[in-house]
């Protein structure tokens, strides 16, 4: 098979993985080496779906022994199969990198023969790339569920980031749709990786610490293939952040690719808006001091699709508002709908020089479309009317026929929830 055809097949098979981030690693180049890693990450292009292309995101092979019901590459599907050789992948990565098409490689794979066999192939490819081709750019590698931890360990020494995909948020969903994967095969390597990462971060006095996945660990969950609630998903994400110190949890709106009685019909549109709301809530967990239980609970298990989760929370806690812009602590400014962490920090710094008026906020480019209903400036309220949930809901909610509701999410809506991470 020609290289071009392999590339097309194995890129198309890799496209459902949401992550393409190249951030979190700041390794500098070494003599005779090619490349470095840039701490904030760099996007090199944006594909027609508006997602950032940072890494050459590709499968080693799509020939899978598993039959996970949601997956395009499942064994029972009649699709073209292809595999790279380690040399082909190294050559592609180097040639793309030298032309500045990419920031590095994101190598994943279907399970060929066995988890260990597959993981060994990935490790061999990375070794070749790092040692023979002297590639020093960013590498993200998948941990294959069920692979021996010694192989996972080797991968961690070579890669900047490792991820093991959880895929589905509960044991039941996993049993239903991915019967050959069990939670132990997923959480085992995840736990191992998190331990090694924490070890590598400990200060080392007399020797250079071994670098183990310096950009940390991430994972991905599919949204909308099973009836699991947003509360289930976000509570799990919260545990992953605290227990395994994950850098990112990615969420992927399920794109129906297979017919199965346990799956949404093939004509179902991917739940992009739901995915977007979950990303917004995820941001609130990581950067805004919210907990999952503040946003959702058993009685109220799903995010309001028409409202961003911070607005939703604020409307249920109107007794805490309005907030005085010139006095409120940073933690409270962060809870004002429409005020992001950059703006909150900007407000805190600017008000030290002098009190801020509503006009000043506008001049500072604070977006007041939503925030105006929840703040006062030197005691004056600019929300024209009562602070009342019934009045505010229609003013804050997305109109049912807007582009955003149709899944045409724009960069403005994506602010803070982009795919770059």
């Amino acid at each position, binding site marked *: 098979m020609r290289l071009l055809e392999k590339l*097309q097949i194995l890129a198309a098979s890799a496209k459902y993985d949401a992550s393409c981030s190249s951030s979190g690693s700041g390794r500098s180049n070494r003599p005779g080496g090619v490349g470095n890693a840039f701490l904030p990450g760099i996007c090199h*292009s944006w594909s027609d779906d*508006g*997602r950032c292309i940072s890494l050459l995101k590709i499968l080693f092979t799509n020939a899978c022994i598993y039959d996970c019901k949601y997956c395009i590459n499942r064994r029972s599907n009649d699709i073209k199969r292809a595999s790279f050789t380690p040399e082909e992948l190294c050559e592609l990565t180097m040639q793309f990198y030298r032309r500045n098409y990419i920031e590095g490689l994101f190598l994943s794979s279907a399970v060929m023969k066995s988890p260990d066999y597959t993981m060994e192939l990935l490790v061999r490819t990375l070794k070749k790339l790092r040692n023979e081709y002297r590639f020093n750019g960013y590498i993200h590698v998948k941990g294959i569920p069920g692979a021996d931890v010694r192989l996972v360990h080797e991968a961690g020494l070579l890669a900047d980031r490792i991820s093991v995909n959880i895929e589905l948020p509960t044991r039941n969903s996993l049993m239903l749709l991915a019967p050959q994967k069990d939670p132990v095969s997923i959480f085992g390597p995840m736990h191992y990786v998190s331990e090694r990462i924490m070890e590598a971060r400990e200060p080392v006095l007399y020797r250079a610490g071994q670098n183990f996945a310096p950009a940390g660990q991430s994972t991905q969950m599919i949204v909308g293939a099973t009836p699991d609630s947003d509360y289930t998903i976000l509570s799990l994400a919260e545990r992953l952040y605290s227990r395994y110190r994950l850098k990112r949890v990615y969420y992927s709106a399920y794109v129906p690719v297979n017919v199965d009685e346990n799956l949404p019909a093939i004509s179902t549109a991917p739940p992009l808006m739901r995915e977007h709301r979950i990303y917004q809530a995820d941001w609130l967990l990581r950067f805004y001091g919210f907990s999952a239980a503040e946003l959702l609970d058993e009685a109220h298990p799903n995010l309001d699709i028409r409202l961003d989760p911070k607005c939703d929370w604020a409307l249920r806690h109107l007794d805490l508002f309005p907030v005085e812009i010139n006095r409120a602590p940073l933690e409270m400014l962060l809870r004002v709908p429409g005020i992001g962490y950059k703006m909150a920090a900007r407000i805190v710094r600017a008000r030290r*020089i002098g009190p801020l008026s509503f006009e000043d906020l506008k001049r500072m480019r604070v977006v007041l479309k939503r925030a105006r209903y929840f703040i006062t400036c030197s005691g004056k309220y600019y929300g024209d009317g009562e602070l009342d949930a019934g009045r505010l809901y229609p003013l804050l909610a997305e109109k049912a026929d807007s582009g955003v509701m149709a899944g045409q999410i*724009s960069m403005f809506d994506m602010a803070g929830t982009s795919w770059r991470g």
Partner: protein
Amino acid sequence: MIYITDGSFEGILTSVFEAFRNREEPEDIKPGVDVQLSFLSGIREIVTDPEKSERVWRGVQTKISQRALEDLYRAYLSGHPKVGLYIYRYIKIGLKLGDRVENYLQHPDVRAIHDLSQKVANEAHRFLGLLRFRKLKNGIYYACYEPDNNITMLLTDHFAKRLSDQPWIIHDRKRDIFALYNGEEVVFTSGLPGPVRPASEEEFYEELWKRYFESIAIESRRNPRLQKSYMPRRYWKYLPEKQL
């Protein structure tokens, strides 16, 4: 009084020095080449003086901050017609407020510098990713582009470190600026002839990249508006993945 400079950053800093020394408030500080202007009243031609600009440079560093100096320089690279005046006013406020001036965003001149600096930094960051090199027949990797701002000098350090073992050229076609890297150091020049023909394997790798670009998109998530907001159409001209 309108100050006319040679258009360099040092020229603007010299103007700042002169304005302070003459205790006058310039109405504008802008580049000009027409010497006849200086015979007109209300016009002062500023001769760039390394010593004077150096003093202002150091003054900003010590009395305001290194970050402020970098902001001023990046703002200068925007080529905005009013940037000379903004720089002067920013420094004037900065000498009173010290490094707090960076946060004084409610002030229009401070905000102007902040916004211009950010715009330039954003475009430079974008081109760390969007710049595309083609390997030429002579083995040199050549990239050309037409950025909105004069950002070439903000990119060279990154590529000299990253692609340190390959000779490359970054060519700003809009401004006739070439950054040349020979494997050891970067030099800037202008007025070079166009590049030689691409290497024979170039077409093959561009084709692979284009097909990869197509294959990685999810059809049911198609969102050209979002794509364009991250990667504006004016940048497509030099992206192989955006050529048919």
